[in-house]
Structure formats: structure tokens, C-alpha cells
């Protein structure tokens, strides 16, 4: 029993990262129907910004997090303006290919500047262990979950209680009608990219602090996993992405716990395939109106 609880803790920490990245995926998809494959690489750049902030400028955990959020938000907007906006009217396959090339550009561009070797974060959060019975809880586990939940709440607030949030919802429902109502769709899309990217930046810094190891290709796998998480929750649905992230994290951990650690990626992809076959709208995707 204790072991199951411990594995649950492990799964929730891992799931938080997937959830944070998946939120950005899902927002962007919700508004322009684009699977932004470069999202995982924005997460990687967020980690490097956090690394630079803590290593070279000696910032603490929270300031580094904020710097990283700002820079990744700007980067997200730049990517959108430069790469995605000119092809917004093109076919979806063109957009998808563009997204993949932006992803490769960021990965190998970054590798050119920072070299392929792994970097390690300075210890900005001294490690402390809490014991609940025989279950060991690290303070970083706690941070990761708290930051994720807080981010999700802020996001929910922005989307449901603010004017820009209303604009985002309107634009995702019907962008032409929104435009006719006087909403600047371009600005709304930019804000969506900024928000989504800044969440990826947060995830990057958290991973840097939690695992203490970053490299230019670190965004590939988590990016794809987050995509699976977003699909599980119903792509375009924000609480769904969060749920999908945790579900995937816990599933992977439980697969490893059962002694099949080598199959954990296979299981994740099997879930993706099953989900797309059986319930392509995801677990929470019922309420989303299909655009015709």
C-alpha cells in the first residue's frame, strides 16, 4: 500500500509537468486548430532561460521563473507572428509542417548556441524530505504540484472572468463572428500564444530544478507526451489537458512500478491510438461545438 502511495506521488510530480505543457498545446489548438509541435521546444528554451538566470545572474527560484515566463511568452508571440500568421489561411497540413520545422529550428538553433551537452541547474531549492508514514515527499514534488495547480487556476480565471478571456473563447468558437463583434482576432491569438508559451516556460524551469539536467533536445519527448495528454482530455479543453497530464503521468509510473519500465512510452502511445480510435474528442470533449 505504501509503495502504491509512493508511486502515486512519483506519478503526480511527473504528471504536473505534462499537464503544464499540455495546457499550452490545448489553448493553441482551441483557438487556431493548429497542433503547435514547437511547443515542447519553447519549454526547452524556458529551461535554458531559467538556467541562465540562476547560473549567470544568481537569481532565486521565483525570479528565475518569472524571467523565464516573460521571455518564453515573447518567444511564443514571435513564433506565431513570423511562422504561423502568414500561413493561417493555408491548408492544415501546411501549418503542421511549418510547426514541425519551427520545432527543428528551435532545437538545432539552440544546440548551435549552447552545445549538445547536458547542463545542470544550481541548487536553488535545497532538497528537503517529508515523511508521511513510509511515503517520502520531497519539497520539490510539493512545489511542482502547487505551481501547476496555481497556474491552472490563474488560467481558468483569465479565460472565464476577464475580457481577453472572453475574446479568446469567442475567437475559438467562431473567429469570423468574433471579428465582426469588434474583437481583434490577431491580438487574441497572440495573447493565447503568449499565455501558452509562458506555461511551457514554467514547466521548463520546474523540470530544470526538479531533475537538475537540461539539454537542447529535452523538449521532444515531453512535447509529444503533452500532446497525448491534451488528446486524452479532449484537445481544446483546458481542465481536460490538466486531467490528461496527471492521468498520463500516473499511468506511466504505474507501468514502471509493475516492472514494465521499458514499455512506458509504448503504453503512452497505445493510449493515444486508442483514444483517437474510440473517443477522438477526448474524455472532456463533449461540450465543444464542432465548427461546420
Amino acid at each position: 500500500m505504501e509503495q502504491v502511495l509512493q508511486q502515486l506521488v512519483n506519478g503526480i510530480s511527473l504528471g504536473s509537468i505534462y499537464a503544464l505543457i499540455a495546457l499550452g498545446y490545448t489553448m493553441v489548438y482551441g483557438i487556431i486548430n493548429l497542433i503547435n509541435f514547437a511547443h515542447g521546444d519553447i519549454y526547452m528554451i524556458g529551461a535554458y532561460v531559467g538556467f541562465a538566470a540562476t547560473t549567470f545572474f544568481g537569481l532565486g527560484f521565483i525570479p528565475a521563473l518569472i524571467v523565464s515566463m516573460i521571455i518564453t511568452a515573447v518567444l511564443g508571440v514571435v513564433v506565431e507572428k513570423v511562422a504561423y500568421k502568414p500561413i493561417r489561411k493555408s491548408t492544415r497540413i501546411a501549418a503542421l509542417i511549418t510547426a514541425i520545422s519551427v520545432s527543428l529550428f528551435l532545437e538545432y538553433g539552440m544546440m548551435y548556441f549552447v552545445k549538445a551537452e547536458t547542463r545542470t541547474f544550481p541548487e536553488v531549492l535545497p532538497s528537503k524530505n517529508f515523511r508521511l508514514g513510509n511515503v517520502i515527499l520531497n519539497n520539490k514534488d510539493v512545489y511542482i504540484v502547487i505551481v501547476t495547480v496555481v497556474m491552472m487556476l490563474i488560467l481558468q480565471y483569465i479565460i472565464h472572468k476577464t475580457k481577453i478571456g472572453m475574446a479568446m473563447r469567442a475567437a475559438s468558437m467562431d473567429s469570423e463572428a468574433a471579428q465582426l463583434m469588434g474583437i481583434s482576432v490577431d491580438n487574441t491569438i497572440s495573447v493565447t500564444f503568449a499565455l501558452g508559451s509562458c506555461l511551457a516556460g514554467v514547466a521548463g524551469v520546474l523540470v530544470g530544478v526538479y531533475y537538475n539536467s537540461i539539454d537542447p533536445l529535452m523538449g521532444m519527448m515531453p512535447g509529444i507526451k503533452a500532446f497525448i495528454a491534451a488528446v486524452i482530455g479532449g484537445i481544446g479543453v483546458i481542465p481536460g489537458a490538466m486531467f490528461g497530464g496527471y492521468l498520463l503521468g500516473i499511468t506511466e509510473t504505474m507501468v514502471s512500478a509493475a516492472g514494465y519500465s521499458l514499455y512506458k512510452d509504448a503504453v503512452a502511445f497505445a493510449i493515444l491510438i486508442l483514444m483517437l480510435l474510440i473517443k477522438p474528442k477526448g474524455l472532456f470533449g463533449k461540450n465543444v461545438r464542432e465548427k461546420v
Partner: protein
Amino acid sequence: MKRLSVVLAMVLILSLFTGCSSQQAAAPAQSTDGADTVKVGLNYELSGNVATYGQSLTEGIELAMEEINNNGGLLGKQVELVKADNKSDNAEAANVATKLITRDKVVTILGPATSGNTKGAIPVAMQHKVPLISASATADDVTVDSNGNVREFIFKTCFSDSFQGVIMANFAGQDLGAKKAAILIDTTSDYSKGLATSFKDKFENLGGTIVTQQAYQTKDKDFRAVLTNIKSVNPDVLYLPGYYEEVGLIAKQARELGLNAPILGGDGYDSPKLLELAGKEALNHVYFTNHYSSMDDSPEVVKFKEAFNKKYGKDPDAFNALGYDLAYFFADALVRAGEADPVKIKDALATTKNFKGITGTLTVDENHNPIKAITIIEMKDGVQTFLKKQEP
């Protein structure tokens, strides 16, 4: 028409160049016998993902060759090193070997560093009958092919993977008194699997049991699930053969989860990155087998350390020491061969006995593997300390 003439002109220019280079290549070939230098090729990982290994080995070799040349060279000739970068790539290692042999006419190739790249260069060396010596390719099948036949021109000066596993199993069973061992391997690495197999066989032979065997893959970042599994069976030791990138993360996460059993491993731990990744609290009760320890205070090692420090301004690591030994190992064979001829050098290499180096005294066995001592290193608060030297 104009375009055609441009193309034709370019073809002409190109053919001129190729004509030139083939003449250049031919020139040193004629003069090799009468030349006043002995050419030795270095086929190393000077860039790419295991670049630190190649660079360290090259530093060691250059230091040794400088000493040799200052003392009058070998057989009355100066030694000339021809350096080439194989970019940490198997195919490139083969290309570089071809270039060194056919273009530079080297009498012996030193390198590459890793087993994989060495295997890439082996067919070329065998085909041209030029000796190839690696100082750090620890895989068991470097000098022996899959049918068990010795590769005539291939040698190595480091112990084999299986030997590392056996030594660690002895250490775990006898010195640490362990009865239950857990194994965690990288299933994508032959090195890791090789070490684990020999550890397991020996440990069970000594009466111990392997309570669990878990696996991960290179580039994984989260090991908490498998480590929780390992912790639940409460092993006396954790055998973790792998490379520093994953081992660093695993050690850190293991200690965070309260898995405090000693961690045992092999020469893949030897990198300053290990400490950066794991942090110093995690690196206690960590033991690994290595080629050499800079803490060893035997007179030869002290002398080497001083010379190295003077030239490079830093303490030598194991790969520097291996490179240094490799150069002298070659020099010893060349002098006994009496002539800078690849086949004679090969015969001399195969009969090396009690060659005294920094990393131990070695004798080449019938499989072209060295019989030599192994060093066990203990990490205390992230610092490597010399624990003991184990004679074979």
C-alpha cells in the same frame, strides 16, 4: 553555351586538383622507409558527444610523445603524431582510419576511445594490416570476433567489461558483505548490459541473490518509479552500470527517495559531470571500478601527475593516464620490433610482457587483452578517493 564552358572549366580545374592530391599522397609513401620520423595516427573523438574522452586521451598521448622525442625519439627517429577527428561517429572513425593508413601512411593507429567507434575502425585496420590499439574500448568483443578468433592487428590496453563486473561482484560480496543485490541497467547500452551479466554471474556464484533487476533507457530523466520498486525489496547494494549522465540523475533521485544502499558501478562514472548532476550529498557510498586514480601515491603516478600538471595546468583524469600509457606501450613495442614496420610492430605488441605503466603493469594475453590491475574508487561527498588496487 556559356554555362557549358563554365562547367567544363570547373571539371578541368577539379581534375587538376585531384591529380595534385594523389601525387601528394604518393610522395610520403616512397619516403617512409628512409624518413627520419615515425608516423603514428591518432583516430580520436575530438568533437561530438563523447569528445571529453578523445580530448583527454590525446592530451596524455601528446605528453608522452613529447617526452619520448625529447629523449631522442625511437630507433633514432622522431615520432610524428597525425591527429584526426572522428566526430564521435562510427562511420567517420572508419573514414579517418582509411585516411590515416592510405594517405598519411602511419605505421600504427592509436584510438578511437569508445568501443563502438573502435569497432567501426577495426575492418579498415585489419584490411590494410596496420596495428590499431585502443586504450579505452572496454567491450569484450573488440579484440576477438564473434567466432572467438583473435583479430590479429587489434589490441587494447584497458581491462574488459566482464572483468569490471567480476571485480565489483567480489567487492560487493566480500568487502561489503552484501547478500542481496539489485541491478539497474540501461537496456540501450551494450556496455551496461555486459557489466550487469558478469556481475550477476559472479555474485550468484559467491552465494548472493539478485533480488530485482530493473531497466531504463539512455536519455530517461525520471527514475523514481523503478527506484521505488528497488527500494521496496531492500537490497544490500545497487549495481548500476552506466554512463555518468543517467547515473548522476539516478543517484540523486535514489537518495531523495531514501534508497541509501551503496551504489556500485564501472568506469563510466569517471566524469566531473557526475558530481554536478547528482550533488555531493548523493555521492556517498558510491564505489566504482576504474583504470587509475589520481589519488594513487605510487612514485610513477606522482611523477606523471607532476609532468601533466606542468604541461596542462590541471590534474590528470583516468583517460589522460590511459593515453599516456598507450603512447609508451606503443613505444615499447616499436623498440622491440626494431623497425617501423606494421607487421613487426604487431608481433612485438602481441608479446608484450610486464610493461610498467601508470595504470598498472600489463601483460598482453593470447586474446590481445591486457592482464592488469584494476582500481576501486570510493566517492565521499562527491570526491573520488582511492580505495584499493585489485591485482587480477
